[in-house]
């Protein structure tokens, strides 16, 4: 389990995925409450996306090894910086920094199979960006103190699964995918007075002819 799961849990099962989509999108929730056919549509899309990404969501030897490796990495960071600080008062402790680096090496070794697997993930799902991100995070997290930078293939797959389900459900239910200022208005609505979507105040380069300012 990634340490990020403690703060932001992402869906693993199809049921979790449906629940998260409904939680993220009040528009989808409203549509589903008013029509049971929409609920079936969501189940269908969530089922398809879950089958597609499920093989890459924490399971098997590679994920377990990567999970153990992650904690080894945190231990490596602790040993490295702990002995670095301790060696300031007692130089004899400086060689223990090498133990920290050794633990980081072990960590990289345990996570290499998962990084290799992310290539298959990218090829099968088309999420090449996810593959690149996984490998880049793996390399970056090798630096002492940066173990946390590695979020793991599982979370990358979970995020992608959630995004695609949300997008496809919005399309299937005829819900417009909202623009950035509409999402901000939704997000801060209720927090302040007079919040509204500011479409009339946003000049979008590609739609500038259609979007005239209020009073224009």
């Amino acid at each position: 389990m990634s340490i990020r799961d403690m703060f932001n849990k992402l869906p693993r099962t199809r049921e979790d995925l449906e629940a998260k989509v409904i939680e993220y999108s009040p528009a989808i929730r409203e549509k589903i409450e008013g029509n049971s056919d929409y609920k079936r549509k969501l189940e269908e899309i969530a089922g398809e996306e879950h089958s597609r990404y499920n093989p890459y969501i924490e399971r098997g030897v590679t994920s377990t090894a990567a999970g153990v490796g992650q904690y080894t990495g945190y231990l490596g960071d602790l040993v490295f910086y702990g002995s670095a600080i301790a060696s300031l008062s007692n130089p004899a402790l400086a060689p223990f920094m090498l133990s920290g680096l050794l633990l980081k090496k072990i960590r990289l070794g345990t996570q290499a199979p998962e990084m290799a697997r992310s290539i298959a993930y990218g090829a099968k799902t088309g999420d090449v960006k996810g593959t690149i991100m996984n490998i880049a995070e793996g390399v970056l997290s090798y630096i002492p103190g940066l173990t946390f930078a590695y979020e793991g293939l599982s979370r990358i797959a979970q995020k992608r699964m959630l995004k695609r389900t949300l997008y496809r459900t919005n399309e299937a239910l005829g819900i417009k995918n909202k623009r950035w200022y509409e999402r901000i208005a939704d997000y801060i609505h209720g927090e302040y007075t007079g919040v509204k979507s500011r479409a009339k105040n946003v000049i979008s380069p590609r739609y500038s002819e259609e979007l005239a300012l209020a009073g224009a």
Partner: protein
Amino acid sequence: MSHKIELSKLHDAVVCNEDDNVLEVSRIMRDTRKRHILVVDDHLKPLGVISAFDINNRVVAEEKNIHNTKAKDIMSKPVQTIDLHSSYEEACEKMVEHEMHTIPVTKEGKIIGILDLAYIFRDHNGGKNEH
């Protein structure tokens, strides 16, 4: 020859009307999470710019009335802009000269978007990558 500014590479511009009052201006900035807003006339011609600092310094600190004070009363002007038919190199020079990291882009005098200095450096090497 330098690259011309591409429409598809511009960001959205957040604007207010010159006659909007300060309450409305501050709410537009809040609802779009922006720290700067362009002031335009009825024909989308850029007239000035208002920052969160301007609202603080020229309205709140001066105890001005947020309902009666208009955007045109507190905006900084003139605003530097660049025409869509200009090159990235020209845009870059103007931004460096005026110490700006974004610049409003106009077409026939009307605002159509914002160009980001970071984009120029990242993708166009300051417009000098062809030389």
